[in-house]
């Protein structure tokens, strides 16, 4: 019953939005090249299914590659920052600067340096997606309570044991929060990378559809991007539930006692 009502609300919202969409197009006589009808978009998706799937596959590949790069580099960078005060002082200002700086502006430069292959796309995606992982991992690694660290010290734990048995597992809830933000950013990164220079992918399709005023295709591509984003987000969430079941249980217990 609870599951059903949990699904009912978002479904009702979607139905409401589609109805509103129809109403606006019909009432205000919006021309097709500004806002096509939802039915037309649906029809386009069905017609161009294999075509859309092909380009989605390419964008998904770039997204996952850039995201993997962000995880593989982001988590060790965070560990290094927490382990070494010198590294933290030397690198943190640069990391923050690299984020206040519009990464989109770097994209053309990366294309000039690395060409039009897969490599520059992974790099741009990485630049957009790795920061949330670094920040939330650093926060998580520093979140261990004082008594927990004193316990480890009293057992004469080595630095490696300190990270492996205490700090890293305790940081996992924060790391997963960072992964969820990062995976959503990675989709944005891949689209930006394709805007700058690509011959395939959903970002490339967006540019082409835009040039042709093919608004129906624009919407079809947006739908594909939305699906990719949502699926990746929930994939990370499922991975979180599987790898740190204790966290969900504690969260539930906490809300139960405070309620």
């Amino acid at each position, binding site marked *: 019953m609870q599951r059903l009502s949990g699904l009912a609300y978002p479904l009702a919202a979607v139905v409401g939005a589609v109805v509103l969409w129809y109403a606006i197009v019909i009432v205000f006589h919006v021309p097709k090249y500004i806002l096509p009808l939802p039915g037309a978009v649906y029809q386009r998706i069905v017609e161009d299914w294999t075509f859309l799937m092909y380009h989605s596959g390419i964008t998904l590949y770039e997204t996952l590659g850039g995201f993997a790069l962000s995880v593989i580099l982001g988590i060790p960078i965070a560990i290094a920052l927490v382990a070494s005060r010198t590294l933290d002082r030397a690198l943190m200002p640069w990391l923050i600067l690299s984020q206040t700086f519009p990464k989109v502006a770097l994209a053309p430069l990366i294309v000039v340096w690395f060409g039009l292959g897969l490599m520059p796309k992974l790099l741009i995606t990485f630049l957009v997606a790795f920061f949330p992982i670094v920040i939330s991992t650093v926060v998580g690694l520093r979140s261990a309570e004082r008594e927990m660290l004193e*316990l480890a010290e009293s057992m004469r734990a080595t630095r490696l044991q300190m990270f492996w048995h205490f700090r890293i597992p305790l940081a996992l809830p924060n790391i997963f929060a960072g992964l969820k933000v990062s995976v959503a950013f990675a989709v944005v990164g891949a689209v930006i990378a394709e805007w700058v220079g690509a011959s395939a992918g959903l970002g490339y399709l967006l540019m082409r559809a835009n040039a042709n005023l093919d608004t129906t295709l624009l919407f079809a591509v947006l739908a594909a991007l939305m699906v990719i984003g949502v699926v990746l987000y929930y994939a990370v969430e499922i991975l979180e539930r599987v790898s740190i079941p204790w966290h969900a249980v504690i969260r539930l217990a906490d809300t139960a006692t405070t309620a």
Partner: protein
Amino acid sequence: MAAAAISLKGASKTFGSDRNRVDALVDIDLDVGQAEFLAVVGASGCGKSTLLRLVAGLLAPTRGEVLIGGRRIDGPDPGIGIVFQTPVLLPWRTVRRNVELQLDIRGISTPSARQHVDELLNLVGLSGFGDRKPYELSGGMQQRVSICRALIHDPSLLLMDEPFGALDALTREQMNLELQRIWMETRKTVLFITHSITEAVMLGDRVVVITPRPGRIMEIVPVRLPRPRDFSALRVPEFHIACDRVRELMNAAGFTE
């Protein structure tokens, strides 16, 4: 004469410097005998937790020295086990694996040590709970697990930092009795920090009263009551005389409860 289990010689600890300087402990001279149960009471922020951390080797004294079994320490001694105010259990490990954490970190892997886990869980009344997760246990049970973890490597010193401070009054009394029983069975030297006068007098062979800011030893009150002490034994006048003496000292030190 055998060396004292714990010995502090002119130990002082200062935090910060210049204007922000806090003298947490000043000139502490204290000897704790083998298998003695020493209780330490004082107001919040009087430095009693700092005293425990000096003995644990988690903090280094600013002046003076700390000896365990006659040897000067400059870090956590291998022969200590600590119980903190919170159980600090790892939520992804079962009860048994939490107790074994101490063995894992210290690289002790003998089968007898693993078997010892069951005996200890039995000793604290948790047999059958080995495969549970910490969050399935009540606060009192969690703290028992942390006592097992502090004892599993068979340390000579058990250091306890207000271990029952977070428990409700009934559970706390229960835990006091159990701790006394565990201590009588294992004969460890116990350094027990608390802010409860009753708890200190009920458990301690001696009760050290510490003054707040700067933390100094004001007096050491001996408690000459037979063991095991249970709540009926505490109706005797000697218990109340000792309690009153400790309270008097704490009031004189400007401590308000």
